């Protein structure tokens, strides 16, 4: 993200926005809004003054400053020094700065970091609303459960390498999905039937986990063999499970208790 807005130079390749380098944009703040880290303000300046000098730099009308302050709910503290802001308030100010030029492309790096639950909900809805208005919103996060609630499309990057680029639904379906939870009083008989059908069964105590058959196929098997079914639930892997599965080999800092890491350590 820092490369996209030209703060860092890539070792090779380039990052373009709508076919242009960020530095070549006519009015950068009117085209791209970025929240890269919460602390990008001088602590002694007020929130309103921070937005004012930003606005002046891209010829953005002054009224817009109060508009975005209102949008993120900072109007009442607009004349307070930013240094006295809580993490949540600085985050809101960062979002206000990104929205200042009313840009069509928005970049948010870890936007919910340090926010309280209410703030997290607010950001989540806010990001979705911005996307609904037809803007492109690129959000990075380590909170995978958060992404499953916010994102449409996913780009998974591990150790600087692109691992996947897909939609959230596809991503989950592709990795790990397809198991079905089955609760039946006829466990032994059902296990035999399913095994014959070529699927695998695992006994989880009160229930069976079936892999290799859909819930409708299992239902049909039950009827054909006169076996009772109390519950039949398709288990969709959570985004987090899917992510973990996919990035297993790409984790940078692995706890040493993991068997894999020990093996590597011994070889070295």
């Amino acid at each position, binding site marked *: 993200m820092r490369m996209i807005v030209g703060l860092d130079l890539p070792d090779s390749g380039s990052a373009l926005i709508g076919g242009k380098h960020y530095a070549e944009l006519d009015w950068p703040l009117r085209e791209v809004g970025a929240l890269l880290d919460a602390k990008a303000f*001088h602590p002694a300046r007020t929130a309103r003054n921070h937005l004012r000098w930003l606005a002046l730099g*891209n010829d953005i009308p002054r009224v817009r400053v109060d508009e975005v302050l209102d949008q993120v709910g900072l109007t009442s503290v607009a004349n307070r020094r930013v240094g006295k802001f809580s993490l949540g308030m600085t985050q809101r100010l960062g979002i206000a700065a990104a929205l200042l030029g009313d840009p069509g492309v928005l970049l948010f790096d870890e936007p919910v970091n340090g926010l309280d639950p209410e703030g997290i909900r607010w950001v989540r809805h806010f990001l979705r609303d911005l996307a609904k208005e037809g803007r492109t919103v690129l959000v990075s996060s380590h909170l995978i459960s958060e992404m499953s609630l916010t994102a449409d499309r996913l780009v998974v990057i591990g150790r600087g390498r692109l691992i996947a680029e897909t939609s959230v639904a596809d991503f989950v379906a592709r990795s790990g999905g397809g198991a079905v939870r089955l609760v039946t009083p006829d466990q032994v008989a059902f296990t035999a039937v399913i095994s014959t059908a070529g699927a695998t069964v695992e006994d989880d105590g009160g229930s069976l986990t079936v892999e290799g058959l859909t819930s409708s196929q299992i239902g049909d098997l039950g009827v054909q063999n006169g076996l009772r079914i109390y519950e039949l639930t398709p288990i969709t892997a959570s985004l987090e499970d899917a992510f973990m599965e996919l990035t297993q080999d790409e984790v940078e800092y692995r706890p040493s208790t993991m068997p894999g890491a020990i093996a590597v350590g011994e070889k070295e």
Partner: protein
Amino acid sequence: MSTEILLNAPRGHYRIKHVARSEIAKIITLRSSAITLGLTFAACLLVTGLVSHSALHHDPGYYAGFDPTAESLTGMITVALAGGVMGALLITSEYSSGTIRSTLAAAPKRPLLLATKVGVTTVLMVVFCEVLSFASFFLGQAILSGGGAPSATLASSGSARAVVMTGLFIALIALMSFGFGLIFRSTAAAIAAFVGVIFVLPLVMHGISESDVHYLPTNILINAIMSTVNQGPGGQFAPVSPTVGLVLMTVYAAIALAVGAALFVRRDA
């Protein structure tokens, strides 16, 4: 949402005037800028007042070779110190606070941004230092003439030159310090470099090469720029003429700024 603003984006692209407005707003909106300028103003006039006052009521022998112009500009030494610190802070505070990332988001063309920043800093420093230089001169002369000591006017030989050049010279010192700020990006390091060049280097140079001491900023300022006596190549203390001294200082500031600019344009922010 006001998509009409997006549609109303002005033609063309952001220019120096937009960046300049932005930079000026940044300076104005920090209370510390006004406080620093105000304190510097007060400290300068206080030093000039004290020094001029202590030059009163001496035996006639004391006034042989007395330089009323240099006497009244003594307070400008404090301006050199404050200007050096301010010059560095104008850029290093952006790095320490993270503001630089907002600045680069609004004006990602780094050469344009830096040129504007240097321009704004130059105008601010030149105006401030010139105003103080004249104020210091007039205050000092009022005290000297009021106390019956030898005094000067702007019409006196070399006085107007000394007053104008002192302001310019100190503005150049501040710009050199701005260059250090660009190079080091840390306030402590930039100010250490500035203090090293201005206060430590002259002392060290005495032990290395006595004849080269005259080319150091501090010595040029005191012996050539601020003085109206003992001028020119013949003088014992000022082998550098005021004009050569000012050119040298311009070169020093330009070197610091050029190195800083080369790093600023390439380095990750």
